[in-house]
């Protein structure tokens, strides 16, 4: 189990940030994918923007983007008048074989 997975299980979304160039490395890794510098784990903002969305069996799913960088798939809760680019909040995250993200409209 990696730190990333451990933290997700505790409802904390963390990612690796390069100590040399400050790049936020996604997907999480032990080294920076720009400069191969060492990384530290830091919390990712809970604020996201809506990149795209669809639904399956009436349940919304989407791609949300954090910090103009990290894009992930997640389920989406909230009103149905969705607009691409609107603000979302990460309501909940978990890890069970794969990451799980739940977004909420603001």
């Amino acid at each position, binding site marked *: 189990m990696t730190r990333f997975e451990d933290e997700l299980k505790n409802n904390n979304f963390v990612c690796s940030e390069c100590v040399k160039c400050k790049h936020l490395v996604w997907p999480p890794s032990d080294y920076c994918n720009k400069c191969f510098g060492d990384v530290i784990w830091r919390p990712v903002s809970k604020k996201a923007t809506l990149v795209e969305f669809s639904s399956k069996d009436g349940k919304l799913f989407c791609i949300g983007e954090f910090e103009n960088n990290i894009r992930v798939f997640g389920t989406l809760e909230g009103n149905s008048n969705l607009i691409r680019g609107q603000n979302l909040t990460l309501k909940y995250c978990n890890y069970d074989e794969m*990451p799980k993200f739940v977004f909420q409209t603001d």
Partner: protein
Amino acid sequence: MKKVAIVATGLTKFNKTEKSLDSIMLSSIKSLFENTRNLDQKDIDVVLTSTNANKNYLANIISELSGIKPKISHSVESLCNSGTNSLVSACAYVSSGLSETALVVGGEKTDSPGLVLNWDMSRGEFKHPIFWASMFTSAHMRKYNTSLEDLAYVSIKNHNNALDNPYAYFEKLFSLDDVMHSKNLTENIRQLDCSMPCDGSAAVLICSEEKAMKYTDAPIWITGIGQKTISASFTKNNDLTSMESTKTAVADAYKMSHKTSKDVDVAELHDAFSVCEIIELEDMEFCQKGHGAKFVRELYDTGNKKINPRGGLIGAGHPLGATGIAQVVEIYQQLSGKAQKRQVSSAKTGLVHNMSAGSTSSTVLVLES
């Protein structure tokens, strides 16, 4: 770089069987040998296999089963574009002079592990391909007013083309109504918008210019190669109405072959889902951006088989590791004038587009007679 010719092909019927992967792959090699003059196992110095089946030592197993003792043999895996990836590698061996004659064989079983994208932290629990396809579809529908009916025309066109392909998985005519009312997998992806995983194998033999005439009077030349990977994670393709890796790969392939989309007489495009063909037609400059759906409709209405004459992945089936090679087999047959009822008249230049995992990686080949 030395010129590289395709001189022979082999194919199996795409279906669902009890046969082992080895046996399926051997069947396409058997058909290749039976269709090729003067070909001896001793001639082949490279054997490359492509599959997602996680099979150790597969190229050597297949070589032994085929009675071949190659100098170079290994397997190539890159999910759905494994097939063209292996052909590109084989081309490099032949064009460099390291090999004279290379056999490339792809194969897959229906229950391939390549069907679930479970390494990607970005996709999370949405690891089935329908989810990335649904995102492309949402984006294209919004930006270009593409309708569910537009998407359905990709499916009925390709299923219709597959009726003339005796190796296709589907042997049934589907109407617009059938596609529109097939099961909704997401709000914008229906069952008949999807390619069907199945068993299948395809093989091609390539060789140097010096050797080509030994096996055929009409070799088909690989004149353009473009291949690009942008990431393993789906979410690095920023514009969801477009496929970044495809745009780079096709530009490289056109540049290498000194061709443009206007020169292409016949093309196999990777229609893993209906929306893919529409986006690819646009990104590969067969039409303007946003005009892909209109272009498909014109092809359908006029019975034009220029795009996906064998039925694409939607009509022919999608045995992952075999797909790219089966696409090459189709274009070989088209440029050889041997595509029978599927024949596009006087086709001289053909194109193959094969991509994987939501277009995170793409391969484009230009072939010429």
